[in-house]
């Protein structure tokens, strides 16, 4: 479904990604783990067209998508809940969700998609007309994910959805990820919380200073001694 082939990305003269290759197949949950500053966010921003690769090829459903503007990629079925949530604090919860469905024309379909989001996160329903800026961190993350689902994406990118959240909320978020997967949406999940990420994914890539250093099934990586030492703190 998605593949990156030898992709390199720079911030000015600084190279943030060095020839990374990865792929995500339909229906999978793939996780990208790595320490802070490894280049995880850069990878997702490049896939969504917010950053342009210096080199390499990115394709989505067989089509070269390098250089496409972000809004066109959303139209193609890629959606992202960005790092730091990026909710519109000045808009209500409902308006945030409506923006998620910006490209959808069918009002009925939008309403039923919003119902599904509210079923997944009842807290959002309670706060429907509140400004997103008044939500707690966990609620904002739910909103960021719900908003990303409003476009009914085929590929959902999640950038550290558990960052800074209380354990109970982290649990809610990962349950939601399982639920989204069970409905057939393909997910690329970026996490520092390697433990939970490996538990809730099919395959994993490990990123270190802009390079992919390991890949495999999540089950295998979870018991790999190197991963255990470096990322699981065991």
């Amino acid at each position: 479904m998605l593949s990156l082939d030898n992709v390199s990305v720079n911030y000015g003269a600084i190279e943030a990604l060095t020839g990374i290759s990865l792929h995500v197949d339909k229906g999978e949950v793939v996780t990208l783990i790595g320490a802070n500053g490894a280049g995880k966010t850069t990878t997702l921003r490049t896939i969504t067209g917010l950053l342009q690769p210096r080199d390499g090829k990115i394709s989505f459903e067989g089509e070269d998508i390098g250089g496409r503007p972000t809004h066109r990629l959303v139209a193609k079925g890629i959606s992202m809940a960005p790092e730091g949530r990026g909710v519109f604090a000045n808009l209500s919860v409902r308006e945030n969700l409506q923006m998620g469905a910006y490209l959808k024309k069918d009002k009925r379909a939008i309403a039923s998609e919003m119902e599904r989001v509210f079923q997944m996160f009842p807290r959002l329903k309670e706060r429907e007309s509140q400004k997103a800026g008044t939500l707690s961190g966990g609620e904002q993350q739910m909103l960021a994910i719900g908003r990303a689902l409003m476009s009914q994406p085929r590929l959902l990118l999640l950038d550290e959805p558990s960052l800074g959240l209380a354990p109970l909320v982290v649990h809610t978020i990962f349950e939601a990820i399982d639920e989204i997967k069970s409905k057939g949406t393909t997910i690329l999940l970026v996490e520092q919380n390697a433990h939970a990420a490996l538990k809730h994914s099919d395959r994993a890539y490990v990123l270190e200073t802009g390079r992919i250093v390991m890949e495999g099934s999540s089950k295998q990586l979870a018991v790999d001694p190197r991963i255990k030492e470096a990322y699981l703190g065991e």
Partner: protein
Amino acid sequence: MDTFVQQLINGLTIGAIYALIALGYTMVYGILRLINFAHGDIYMVGAFVGYFLSFQLGFAAGPSLVGLSVVLVGSMIAAALVGMAIERFAYRPIRKYARMTTLITAIGVSLLIENLFVAKLGAAPRAFPQLLREQSYTLFGNAAISKSQILIFAVSVLLTLLLQWVIFKTKVGTAMRAVSFNLNSAKLMGINTDFIISFTFALGSALAAAAGVLTAQYNPQIDPLMGIITGLKAFVAAVLGGIGNIPGAVLGGLLIGIAETFVVGYGQNVGVPTTFRDAVAFAILILVLLFRPTGLLGSTVQEKV
């Protein structure tokens, strides 16, 4: 000397004009963090488009409501196109550069428009044709309101309400608010942010053009440099209200208009000469920047990260 009520009416009239122009400054700032110095010139362009439309379409011959409406709407459309062109060709290519670059570009665009008009049309003022049959009505026995003043109030209230509706009730308006809060998040929603920015320039420019045509009905002298001082005062109005804040722009515009009229009307009583008329706005700007940089209605916490 005019009565207090009369001063208030006159002040609100000019204030409504400042408010219409201030809305454009504040919308563009809200979305791009850019002070569009060419915005005052759009107000001038609007007045001139109205002037030429009046003659070309034969409305200059005599007052008519149809003529007035056509000229008003026509100049708003033309100015919207000019505003979009400025954004597309001057600001968009340099959007990613430092703010100083865009600021200097904005000043350059302003000078370009002014000098282009002076070169083509000459600097001498022209008399804008009267499209409204002027008439005065007595208020409270000791004050008067003219038809052109009523027109200015009515049109500016209507346009402000319309703008409020667009921004807060429509999808494109919600997208404008989204873009102004977080550009990248907005892109991730599938919003074509270039279109939204262009649309914002179109709205702001149309309002400035309306202000140009309306002013010309009240004070029918137009010239290619008329946008400089008025534009600066409207900018101050936007800062006073809290730049980026829509109701703030309206409030700021009205306050500047009233302050200016009162200086002319009552200033002498407290030793302020009437020649300080144009200085009032800038004195207010300095006070705002010193004591309340976020403006009257601007949020005290910085929303942007």
